[in-house]
């Protein structure tokens, strides 16, 4: 026993020696060089820290581009991401401990806790940041004390939108179905299901004998938006999320209870009973959903592209003929204007990148953000290193070889080489050079080279060149419709208010009842039951709070009070 105790002591002591000096010493240079873009030697590089309450890829310490950027601007930032906790928990812990990283993603709680540093008075010194948003957009960010605490990172369109891919929602249909029918115009829900029925009757199985799934609905966990939100699109509204806002009357409308919603779910119910919809959709997990898409058996679905992109990659890798997807802007009646795709720059901004009170060098931090918006650095962040990650042709257009494209999606390459600083401010649209797109994905030539022949054929049949061309093109003017998108407000609601509580209850109820409505033997009875349960959640409380938020945003941007006189 003595031996064991002695051994224990030794181990404890040794480990203490090993780890006693474990605490990280923050590299910080006293020499506050006015680092604009230039070359800085390694020992002068400032190192900031950042925590983002999102999931992301943690970079290697010796990341090539991060190091290159650091040498050019004299600073870098260690980004950490959410791991195994919810965003609320992680931020709550930071507030409780009152110690923060230098940069953080803005939340109302951090603001409320006084954890953030006001930046408005210093903006003039940092032109890249200052010019990133317009005067009125900056104004919309003012907190109650009149100061600005955050720099929104996303949605800033440089010159024009270059989108080639519909990243958001649409009815996605396999090219083989359209080809089989001779590329007809499909506009309405009825036309779509009619086509699916006919195709399925003629082609019930895949070449390998497995059965075809004509229509798929993802209803798992929070992905159930695929089931619940189409009524807003079917009526021709844009994706405000959570509810419709009428741009003429400014009225907030609940899309869950519209006649279109009832018609849509009734249609789904009919099709389910006919066997057109996957009999397993209501219990399927997200993984199972991706499996089904990847197998090429699913003819059509409503989804947002980013969520099934990997599954489509798998289809491409397997060379399943005609199984890649094309977006359709389906409406409830034919000939309606639809708004699945919108180009907009929000007038009312919220959230963004904040600097915390734990940051010892606020000026350095702002300088860092400012330098990250330098054209040269922007290209490094989004395209990588010339000659390594992309090539330039005689016209100055960037392009990539297949190997480069493959590299860019490998996670080990992302960790060791690429450094996008994805949660720091960045543009979309055009590169500052005015020739190229901001990112490789939106570069037109890059896009065309990546298309499969079947997709090219299909697009051409509809006179389109990109996926976006398949849909109506809509621009939403932030000045005219400053509330858009209103989901940025709903996302900040909590159960502390009647409206927020109602919202949580509505979500629960919809999640529970909507699948039942679709599979019910007696649709009308099921719908009545659903509506009863839904109304007991007091959706009016929710709508009232959102309505007030819409009025508030109009007042903020246009300076007029549009509340109806009482």
């Amino acid at each position, binding site marked *: 026993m003595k031996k064991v105790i002695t051994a224990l002591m030794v181990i404890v002591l040794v480990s203490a020696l090993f780890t006693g000096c*474990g605490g990280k010493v923050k590299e910080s240079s006293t020499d506050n060089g006015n680092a604009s873009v230039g070359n800085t030697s390694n020992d002068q590089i400032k190192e900031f820290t950042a925590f983002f309450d999102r999931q992301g890829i943690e970079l290697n*310490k010796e990341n090539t581009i991060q190091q290159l950027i650091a040498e050019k601007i004299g600073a870098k930032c260690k980004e950490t991401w959410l*791991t195994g906790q919810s965003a609320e928990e992680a931020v709550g812990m930071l507030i409780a401990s009152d110690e923060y990283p230098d940069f953080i993603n803005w939340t109302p709680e951090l603001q409320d806790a006084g954890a953030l540093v006001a930046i408005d008075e210093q903006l003039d010194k940092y032109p890249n940041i200052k010019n990133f948003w317009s005067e009125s957009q900056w104004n919309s960010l003012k907190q109650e004390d009149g100061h600005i605490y955050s720099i929104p990172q996303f949605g800033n369109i440089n010159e024009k939108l270059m989108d080639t891919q519909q990243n958001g929602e649409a009815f996605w249909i396999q090219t083989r179905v359209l080809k089989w029918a001779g590329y007809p115009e499909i506009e309405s829900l009825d036309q779509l299901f009619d086509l699916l029925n006919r195709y399925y009757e003629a082609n019930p199985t895949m070449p390998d004998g497995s059965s075809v799934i004509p229509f798929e609905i993802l209803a798992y966990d*929070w992905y159930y938006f695929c089931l619940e939100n189409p009524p807003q699109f079917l009526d021709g509204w844009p*994706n405000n999320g959570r509810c419709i806002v009428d741009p003429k009357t400014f009225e907030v409308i609940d899309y869950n209870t519209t006649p279109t919603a009832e018609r849509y779910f009734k249609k789904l119910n009919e099709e389910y009973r006919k066997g057109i919809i996957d009999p397993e959709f209501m219990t399927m997990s997200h993984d199972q959903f991706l*499996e089904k898409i990847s197998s090429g058996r699913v003819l059509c679905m409503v989804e947002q592209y*980013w969520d099934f992109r*990997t599954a489509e990659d798998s289809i491409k890798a397997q060379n399943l003929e005609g199984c890649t997807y094309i977006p359709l802007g389906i409406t409830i009646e034919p000939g309606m204007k639809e708004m699945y795709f919108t180009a907009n720059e929000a007038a009312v901004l919220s959230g963004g990148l904040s600097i915390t009170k734990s940051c010892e060098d606020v000026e350095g931090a702002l300088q860092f953000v400012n330098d990250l918006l330098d054209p040269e650095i922007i290209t490094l962040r989004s395209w990588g290193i010339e000659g390594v990650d992309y090539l330039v042709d005689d016209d100055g257009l960037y392009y990539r070889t297949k190997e480069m494209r493959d590299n860019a999606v490998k996670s080990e390459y992302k960790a060791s080489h690429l450094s996008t600083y994805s949660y720091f401010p960045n543009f979309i649209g055009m590169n500052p050079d005015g020739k190229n797109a901001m990112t490789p994905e939106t570069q037109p030539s890059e896009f065309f080279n990546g298309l499969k022949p079947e997709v090219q054929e299909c697009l051409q049949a509809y006179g389109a060149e990109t996926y976006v061309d398949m849909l109506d093109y809509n621009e939403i003017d932030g000045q005219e419709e400053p509330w858009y998108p209103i989901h940025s407000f709903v996302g900040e609601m909590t159960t502390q208010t009647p409206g927020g509580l109602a919202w949580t209850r509505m979500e629960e109820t919809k999640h529970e009842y909507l699948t039942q409505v679709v599979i019910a033997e007696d649709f009308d009875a099921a719908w009545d039951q659903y509506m009863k349960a839904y109304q007991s959640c007091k959706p009016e409380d929710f709508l009232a709070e959102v309505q007030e938020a819409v009025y508030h945003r109009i007042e903020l941007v246009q300076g007029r009070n549009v509340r109806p006189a009482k």
Partner: protein
Amino acid sequence: MRATNRSHIKIHKKFDLKNFIYSFVIGLVLTAFIIVTLYPILNTLAVSFNDALDALRGGIYLWPRKWSLNNYYTVLHKESMMTGLSISVLRTVVGTILQLFVTALIAFVLSRKKFVFAKPISILYVLTMYVNGGLIPTFLLFKSLGFMNSFWVYVIPGMVSAFNMLVIRTYMNGLPDSLEESAMMDGAGYFKVFTRIIVPLCKPVFATIALFIAVGQWNSWFDTMLYNRMADSLTTLQYELMKLLSSVSQLSGDANTAALTGSSSQVTTKSVRAAATILTSLPIVVLYPFLQRYFVTGLTIGGVKE
């Protein structure tokens, strides 16, 4: 095991039909059980060796469809994995020894039937299994105790688990009091009784609890995330894997932001998760047969006494 072994050799020397049927039924039940429990392991193994994009299609059961070592490469290429591995080994070794020793000692004290405070102290420990101050108060306490950015947060806070203590105590309760009495008669103190008499008799239960503690230490990552997030030199293997897995998982929960940033779901989720699982359970799987030895030796020593 040896007990039944011995008795059967002695008594049932000739073929015995009843005994044969009995063994046959047991063999059948266990075989069925093994098939059922082996399936998830083999499936995970197969998925981990399958090409990630191909695995997305599903339909992989016991054998990879398209072989690939890429998933393992993805898990292992990270530079911080080596630091993580060494800290994980260190915390498992130090933590297991320390916790086992301390837990055994308190179990010993509480198993003394004459000890006047045995009951109140037992209650104090038992209740810890059911009450919990919550994440934030615990975090604030540990912070004020200086456990931030420190190795000690891995081994000190969980030093005594009531569950392990009770299992050991139950075992010790089963040991005859006469052992303690005769030793005390010879002038030994309680500590000596513990080290000289009780410890050698408790090897099987110690091996069991050591396994529980070691698995707990090896698998834990939450403490690393809470307290040593910014201390690169104190990271653990499981935490590094968690970071990797959450960077490829898709529970971000906000469709609108996801659409806005264009963050697509990553290719590797399922297969990389499988590879990470296989890699982290390997060391424990190797450790177990080593501990199994003690299940037998404990008996021999026990059998000699009394």
